């Protein structure tokens, strides 16, 4: 099944520098984690203060940031200084330390998810930290910790809008995580493994050749129906339009974020962006052949970036164009529509795979 995956990044470090000991493993893992974390933080740093504004502006006939630096890029450090320099307002009556833990938990949970994501190669480096046998289950588990953080924030803020936002977050995540995972399981039936390198490896074959172009056997092409289901559930999971209901600024003024300012506010936003990128990463691993793409294996990191940012662009597009559904409609779509469809998809896939294989 495809070529053997390249060596994981920490193992590569251990081999290259000959530090084959427990201490060596720890150091190598830490270096690897720092690299991955910095890549993701850099993504978010570009996305939050700059790319998001530029993309939204392009959709809405505006120009957006262009005053400092080339293309306004220096807004990124400027925004960082500005946001961190703001006063951290702690409202009376908030439930500490829950109130303080929530904004840390959100980005942390999303970052953890990246530990098992294969991010492609830069030259000989394969940016992939760990590849446990239950990788896919693990990444969903990490991603869903986020809703705990939202509930904590909503409940601990002692604000009615935050409270409503927290409740909405729970209701929404319950309604969409089940279809999300059930749909992902249909892919597992194809791949026959939960290990992420296995899922990616199963998508490397050629599905068909059209006019000289090889179309790879990405699960998005193999089962487009599951792809659309997964994409929709993923939008709800990361809380973007049309499912940005837990925040819904025009209804509940930011929901669980209402009482947060300064660094905590930044952490929440960071968490949201990392979560979008994690959503994109999961989507590319499960349906878009991971980091694979045309060209040599050694530049596949570029394809990873393209896919993840493509998903980010998609979320921004949806935000500029699509109305927000109402909370009761969302629950209805989740439980009555998506859940049924995702189980139908699972059963059908199992039958087809069982008959053919």
């Amino acid at each position, binding site marked *: 099944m495809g070529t053997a995956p390249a060596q994981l990044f920490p193992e590569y470090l251990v081999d290259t520098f000959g530090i084959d000991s427990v201490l060596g493993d720890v150091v190598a893992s830490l270096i690897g984690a720092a690299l991955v974390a910095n890549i993701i933080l850099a993504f978010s740093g570009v996305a939050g203060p700059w790319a998001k504004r530029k993309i939204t502006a392009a959709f809405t006939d505006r120009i957006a940031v262009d005053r400092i630096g080339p293309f306004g890029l220096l807004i990124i450090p400027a925004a960082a200084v500005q946001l961190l320099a703001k006063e951290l307002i702690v409202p009376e009556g908030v439930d500490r330390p829950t109130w303080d833990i929530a904004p840390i938990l959100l980005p942390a949970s999303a970052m953890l998810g990246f530990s098992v994501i294969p991010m492609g190669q830069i030259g000989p480096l394969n940016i992939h930290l760990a590849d446990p046998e239950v990788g896919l289950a693990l990444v969903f588990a990490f991603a869903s910790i986020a809703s705990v953080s939202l509930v904590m924030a909503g409940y601990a803020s002692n604000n009615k809008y935050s409270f409503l936002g927290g409740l909405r977050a729970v209701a929404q995540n319950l309604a969409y995580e089940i279809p999300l995972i059930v749909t992902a399981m249909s892919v597992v039936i194809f791949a026959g493994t939960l290990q992420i390198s296995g899922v990616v490896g199963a998508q490397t074959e050629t599905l068909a050749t059209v006019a000289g172009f090889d179309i790879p056997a990405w699960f998005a092409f193999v089962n487009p129906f599951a792809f659309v289901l997964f994409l929709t559930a993923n939008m709800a999971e990361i809380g973007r339009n049309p499912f940005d209901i837990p925040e819904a600024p025009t*209804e509940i003024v930011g929901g669980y974020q209402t009482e947060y300012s300064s660094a905590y506010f930044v952490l929440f936003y960071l968490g949201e962006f990392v979560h979008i990128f994690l959503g994109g990463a999961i989507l590319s691993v499960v349906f878009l052949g991971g980091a694979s793409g045309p060209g040599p294996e050694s530049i596949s990191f570029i394809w990873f970036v393209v896919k993840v940012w493509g998903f980010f662009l998609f979320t921004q597009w949806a935000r500029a164009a699509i109305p927000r559904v109402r909370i009761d409609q969302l629950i209805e779509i989740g439980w009555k529509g998506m859940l049924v469809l995702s189980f139908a998809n699972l059963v059908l896939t199992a039958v087809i795979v069982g008959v053919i294989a």
Partner: protein
Amino acid sequence: MSLERPDTVDDGAVERTPDELEALLGDLVVDRDDHLNAPGFVIRPDTVQETLSVLKEQAGYDHLSVVSAQEYENRYESIYHLKKYDDPTQEVSVVVPADKDDPVSESAEPVFRTADWHEREAYDLIGIEYDDHPDLRRILLPETWQGHPLSMDYDKDRPQIATLPEHANPLQDHHKDEESDTMFLNIGPHHPATHGVLHLKTVLDGEQVVDVEPDIGYLHRSEEQMAQNGTYRHQIMPYPDRWDYISAGLLNEWAYARAAEDLADIEVPEYAQVIRTMGAEMCRIAAHMLALATFALDINGDFTATFMYAINDRERVQNLLEDLTGQRLMFNYFRLGGVVWDLPEPRDEFFSKTRDFLDQLPESIEEYHNLITSNEIFQMRTIDTGVLPPEVAKNYGATGPVARGSGVDYDLRRDDPYGYYDELDWDVITEDGCDNFSRLLVRMREVEESAKIIEQCVDLLEDWPEDERNIQANVPRTLRPDDDTEIYRAVEAAKGELGIYIRADGTDKPARFKIRSPCFSNLQTLPEMANGEYIPDVVAALGSLDIVLGEVDR
């Protein structure tokens, strides 16, 4: 012809002469006090409900436009200005004097729901107490206010203390029982969806709204009193721009111009009427574009492209208005007897700019239909939410797109013609959905009708002979309408019937200047639309009402 009345004849449409009405009311009438616009019947303060019921049920006066109250040297007086939705030129005023020392008058609320807020305002500003009123509290001023600002003995130097009760939950006990538990939520006065400084006292049961009560007055700027301190000729005209300040300025100015011109018997030259009509419709487009933009904001979320697109289109019409009037928002363009100056030179350039705008407008409207009205999620959100049945709308005195979205075929431009409207070819838009979607659709289609009107006006203006371009009638430098003449006149502003009641006392300033704000009456319907629905529906319903707090609070 589009301007003809539809052929609906019922008892209410039969026009009665004032004497027939007096006969119908019989002993209820104690005196006559005719106004310039309508016959006025003076009645005793304890027969208000009976009189209004007779007029509503038997004579078909189903629209209580406004309640204007004032204090005289020897009495207080409330005037109920009644009209018919089927034919607003049939008007009647019910004049209710109240005792100077003990101003108590019967409330009209059981007959017309809309009287609720109007009488509260009269109580708040003038000091008349309404017997049998369900909730006689102050409405514009804080509850702790001392004195009534428009009464004669008001001491304006007295220090006032306004308190803010924290975490009030006035309805807690009403809605708390063993099965359900409610939460009181203050929406506003600072909230992204209140479109200004509106405060909604909301009681929630989970995500559902049990009760919502609008609390207004945060933008009260004593506009009526300021107008009473200005001279008719020049000093009042700048104020109307500041009521509905969402670029509906010319429409507001026309309300004052129409009332004052009829009061002082001023004839406006035809050429000026065409310019007025064109400018007013430009304002309507600008106002409806903003309504569309903010409604998309409420439904889609803050970063929707529709908002910026609509603001872009509004910007184009705003530029035209700037060329015409020299101002972008506070136009001050109308004068009694005409307009302040002629079209900008070179005229051809102005006409071609206007035509360019009109040419690209259908394309924009098409885009909005693609973006929002034909979007399934948008339809899911707005169709059958915020339902306002036509009878309820009439009972609350709703007008404008809110009434027309409920199928009430009422538009003063056609039904009580003024300006140049009856010479032009255009249609009144109504939708029968009664929901948030219908109200939006009415506005979008009205933009198209306004474009038709502007186009015809441009055609007329282009061919107007140069020596007949008379922009202002000869109006005396100082206007002193006769003592004790009263008039109520309304125009179709962006949000509905914007009316002005003026009582002259022989001086060059009005003795009483009352503004009938369409938003004020329309906002009253919010609880009818929102109770029992979800929070997002309240936001949508409020957006579809398209209120401007500057006009609600005045």
